[in-house]
């Protein structure tokens, strides 16, 4: 048994590729945990960042600076009465959130957090990701129909039309990135997520900068389409609250609703991971060419630890800013403990041996976080598109642009 466990350590394959079931399960558990934490953190961050954009404070009551608010929300949702409309189609109503969540989580089996940090390396990785994430819309459509109510139905209709439309543009953008992977000696590309990042490493350029501005345009198309795919502002028509109250999940409440919530945020993380993998060099650290050499390697490997230390310092700073009143004592202590926790993580990540291993994951998560911030920023800035405008953008702007970029990429690739 011990041998079996040890046999994987030191391997340079993902557990799935190495055929090590145990470690594959460990990875799955880790990703599931990490994702749940990320969704919870995202919930808090979105509310806080949006609040600060809108000249208000956001959650401040539960825990210091509202840090425990997501936990309280989760508890509330779990304990809430689970209402199923009397006229609903019970089976489909029950199945829909499950499908959405399954689709959103299943894609993470191939997301490469590092050269070996993925559950498995599928040779059709990107295809698998697109395919499985497109299954999520089935759940949305089923939810809208099963509620047997008009607003959810219209939400579901909108969402199905929207997602099918934007998948086309999204696919074209992805293909142009996949074409770029074939710019090597053998002339064969790859669909494997890890392979795509390795291709960027070999070619010494992130695909966003390759054939400038083609790579950039492809990523732009993807970045717009992915917002539409995940039903977020300004493309949040399926759940446009001012028109359809809550769109397809109007009739959902409690735990079932929280599944939709979970799925929405993990789908956001999933599509951001695709964008990061395809164009932003996945787990690769920035400026490998400009700032190369062992010294810079060392400097960049310190980044994860230092950023956690910085977060810890921020928390500590805010600890001192807490009002000196007995009412806030528990919160102040909590914030201080949180600062210590962050600092300890930072110190741990600075330790040699650890820092080399975590920096892949750090850079990947950092890039994904940039996209997540963009999501919040869009939401704070843009009004909502109307349905016909949304379709026009999808079919008349993004699709021709995607086709053009694809053709140009192919031509440039042949010429170079």
């Amino acid at each position, binding site marked *: 048994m011990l041998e079996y466990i040890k046999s994987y350590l030191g391997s340079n394959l993902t557990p799935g590729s190495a055929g090590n079931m145990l470690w594959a399960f460990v990875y799955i558990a880790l990703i599931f945990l990490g994702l749940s934490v990320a969704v919870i953190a995202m919930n808090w961050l979105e509310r806080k960042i949006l609040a600060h954009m809108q000249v208000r404070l956001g959650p401040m009551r539960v825990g210091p600076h509202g840090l425990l608010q997501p936990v309280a929300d989760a508890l509330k949702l779990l304990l809430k009465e689970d209402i199923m409309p009397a006229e609903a189609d019970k089976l489909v109503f029950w199945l829909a959130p499950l499908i959405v969540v399954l689709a959103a989580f299943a894609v993470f089996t191939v997301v490469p957090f590092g050269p070996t940090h993925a559950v498995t390396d599928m*040779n059709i990785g990107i*295809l698998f990701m697109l*395919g499985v994430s497109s299954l999520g*819309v089935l759940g949305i459509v089923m939810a809208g129909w099963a509620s047997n109510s008009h607003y959810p139905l219209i939400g579901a209709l909108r969402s199905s*039309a929207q*997602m099918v439309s934007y998948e086309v543009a999204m*696919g074209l953008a992805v293909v142009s990135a996949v074409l770029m992977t074939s710019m090597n000696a053998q002339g064969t590309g790859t669909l494997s997520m890890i392979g795509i990042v390795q291709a960027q490493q070999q070619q010494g350029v992130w695909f966003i900068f390759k054939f400038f501005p083609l790579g950039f345009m492809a990523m732009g198309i993807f970045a717009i389409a992915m917002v539409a795919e995940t039903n977020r502002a300004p493309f949040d028509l399926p759940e446009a609250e001012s028109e359809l109250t809550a769109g397809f999940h109007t009739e959902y409440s409690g735990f079932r609703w929280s599944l939709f919530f979970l799925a929405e945020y993990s789908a956001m993380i999933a599509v951001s991971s695709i964008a990061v993998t395809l164009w932003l060099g996945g787990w690769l650290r920035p400026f490998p060419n400009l700032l190369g050499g062992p010294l810079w390697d060392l400097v960049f490997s310190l980044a994860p630890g230092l950023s956690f230390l910085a977060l810890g310092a921020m928390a500590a700073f805010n600890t001192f800013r807490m009002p000196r009143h007995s009412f806030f004592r528990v919160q102040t202590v909590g914030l201080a403990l949180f600062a210590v926790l962050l600092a300890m993580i930072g110190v741990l990540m600075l330790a040699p041996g650890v820092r080399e291993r975590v920096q892949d994951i750090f850079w990947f998560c950092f890039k994904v976080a940039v996209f997540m911030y963009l999501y919040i920023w869009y939401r704070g800035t843009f009004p909502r598109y109307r349905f016909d405008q949304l379709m026009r953008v999808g079919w008349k702007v993004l699709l021709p642009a995607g086709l053009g970029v694809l053709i140009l990429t192919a031509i440039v690739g042949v010429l170079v």
Partner: protein
Amino acid sequence: MNPVATPFFFYLLSTLAILGGVMVIVRRNAVHSAIALIVTLLSVAGLYLMLYAPFVAGVQIIVYAGGIMVLFLFVIMLVNIDRSMKERAFNKQWWIAIAAAVALGALFVSVFVKSKGLFPERGLPLAEESNTQQIGLYLYGNYMFAFEIASLLLLVAIIGAVVMAKKRI
């Protein structure tokens, strides 16, 4: 490469596919039928994976389960389910349908029995790595003409659909 394709998975996926297929025709509610069809399509995708055809499996999921079925559901949702529920699911041609099904089954069995020598005893050792590339080479090399004809047909279908659905263009 360890074989993942154990007989257990084969039987599991086939059973699911067949069950799904049966559900498609016996359920009165069209949405339930569509969901059953999705189960069938996904099981078939799993079978493709077992045949070392990951690309086909992926495309099956994207195109059929993710794209076409969504459009199916889209249309079904607009149909008055209550009315179709009241109508009899089996209409008067059921005995023709059974005859056709029996005939088709007999054809399959006879082909399988007669040409047993054609099937290899074991799965062909296909190089998994180059699978997708091979498909690309075949599609855009050997079968270029057929592929383009198919795409032309689809284009015609799209135009036809637009003409039929739109009042004025």
